């Protein structure tokens, strides 16, 4: 009973800023106050009419989609190798491949900035895609590994014994079975890349301002509920995309 009420309080703390951001998106006051006053959709209208934000959304979507594709391919290949074969140095390889999750973004951002200046990728879209894919591939690897662990490798063995080649076995047997993991990994990669700020702040050239950078600079110098409205739209979008994928991933795993 004590634990339950304690947990309720901690969950309230955990969700507090999200509740505040969503609530202030509908306030009629000129700056974000909590609890909000009245109800209006004007702030949503306002940000949809500001090209600096809509352009940034377009740019972020393109960047996130491209990095998602790159990391889905890199991550699925790596996970197959790590999950289906006993390679020497298995532990070291998987530690290396998962390390970008833990690596300080502020250091990686500066490192990539100086590196890109040396190799001529400075301020380029390709450079941003490469940086984001390094960051998101570990999530694809983990989720694909998780779904690989769910089915018996004997199924693949059977396909091969029946005469299917490696490629055919992969396309017709393995891929359909790990699809929930690849899909979940790709979706998380998309969301992480879309929301990435620190590394992008170092690498984005002029004219490549992404939505998180727009929000960051906007919040630094001004405070009005426009940012609440954009954030609310993002929260709704990620929930609508992320939750069904998560549920599907879980239901496959526990069926």
């Amino acid at each position, binding site marked *: 009973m004590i634990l339950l009420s304690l947990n309720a309080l901690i969950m309230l703390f955990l969700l507090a800023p999200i509740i505040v951001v969503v609530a202030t998106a509908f306030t009629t006051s000129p700056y974000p106050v909590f609890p909000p006053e009245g109800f209006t959709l004007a702030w949503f209208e306002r940000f949809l009419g500001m090209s600096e934000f809509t352009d940034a959304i377009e740019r972020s979507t393109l960047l996130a989609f491209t990095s998602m594709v790159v990391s889905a391919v890199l991550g699925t290949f790596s996970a197959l190798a790590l999950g289906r074969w006993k390679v020497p140095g298995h532990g070291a390889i998987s530690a290396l491949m998962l390390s970008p999750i833990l690596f300080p973004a502020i250091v990686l951002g*500066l490192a990539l900035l100086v590196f890109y200046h040396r190799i001529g990728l400075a301020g380029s879209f390709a450079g941003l895609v490469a940086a984001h894919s390094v960051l998101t591939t570990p999530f694809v690897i983990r989720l694909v590994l998780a779904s690989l662990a769910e089915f018996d490798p004997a199924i693949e063995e059977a396909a091969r014994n029946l005469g299917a080649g490696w490629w055919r076995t992969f396309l017709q047997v393995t891929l359909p079975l790990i699809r929930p993991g690849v899909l979940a990994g790709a979706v998380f990669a998309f969301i992480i890349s879309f929301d990435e700020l620190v590394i992008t702040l170092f690498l984005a050239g002029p004219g490549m301002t992404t939505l998180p950078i727009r929000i960051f600079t906007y919040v630094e110098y001004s405070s009005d509920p426009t940012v609440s409205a954009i954030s609310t739209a993002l929260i709704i979008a990620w929930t609508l995309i992320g939750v069904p994928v998560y549920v599907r991933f879980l239901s496959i795993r526990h069926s």
Partner: protein
Amino acid sequence: MSTRTGLAGDRSVTGPEAARATRRPARRDLTPWLLLTPNVLWLALFLAGSLITLAVISLRGYEPGGRGMLDTWELTHYVNFLTDPFYYAVLWRSLGMAGQVTAWCLVLGFPLALTLSRLRGVARALFYLAILMPLLTSAVVRTFGWMILLANNGFINRTLIDLGLIDEPLALMYRMSGIVIALVEVLLPFMVLALDAALLNIHPQIYEAARNLGARAPRIFVQITLPLSLPGILSGSILVFTLAISAFVTPALIGGPRVEVMATLIYQESMSLLNWPFGAAIAFVMLFTLLILFALTFRLGSRVQPMEAG
């Protein structure tokens, strides 16, 4: 430890270990290496390559204004950082901040993880989702929420004044206290996931045995739950500490220029002052500090491990 950090809490990764071990015959198979190559090359280029470049740059000379980066090799930037009391203070402030955030995440994360690890089926999936939900919202957005809450005339101060607990608003914005509050909230889910993974590994029969032998809840917690979840406590603490000391968004927005920490200093030196060599040196001071702390934690972990096995 990084294997405990994923989004889905997949402890089953090492699942059919036996099946995997017997799968491949002794015949040399190059397929896994072909599959690993693209990602290994990618990481060698963009992770290793960029870090080596950064290390080289941190040893280059720098002349403010005029010539910028020089072709000389020197340790000036490291010496400058470690001898100047101002920079020294930034390092200590960051360590203190990360320590406080880690401690609070442990305190607040344990009750959540205890409940989560006891739930099964749909209830567990829902609770898990509720804890993961904040991770689907970016740190910028959540920090913005905290800025609204922590302001002088914000919700927290107005509530405390209305309740008569304080007369003057507490200064939380542009203070370390505000940064710590927001960072604890931003990083708490990571701690809960790490603790949950460790708590799930404790066999329920151990609790039963303890209860049958007459131990009460507080004693069970101190003598069984706490020591057996130590791997999760250590991995969660390392994760949260690392993310806290390198956090940029929350200190930049809530602390502003008044409360400088390592991450904001790196950004300011390299992006506002364009002194890349010094920024690079600060980055490596931070990495070395983390490495020393990791080494100490692992020694602590390996010293305690044999005891719990017995």
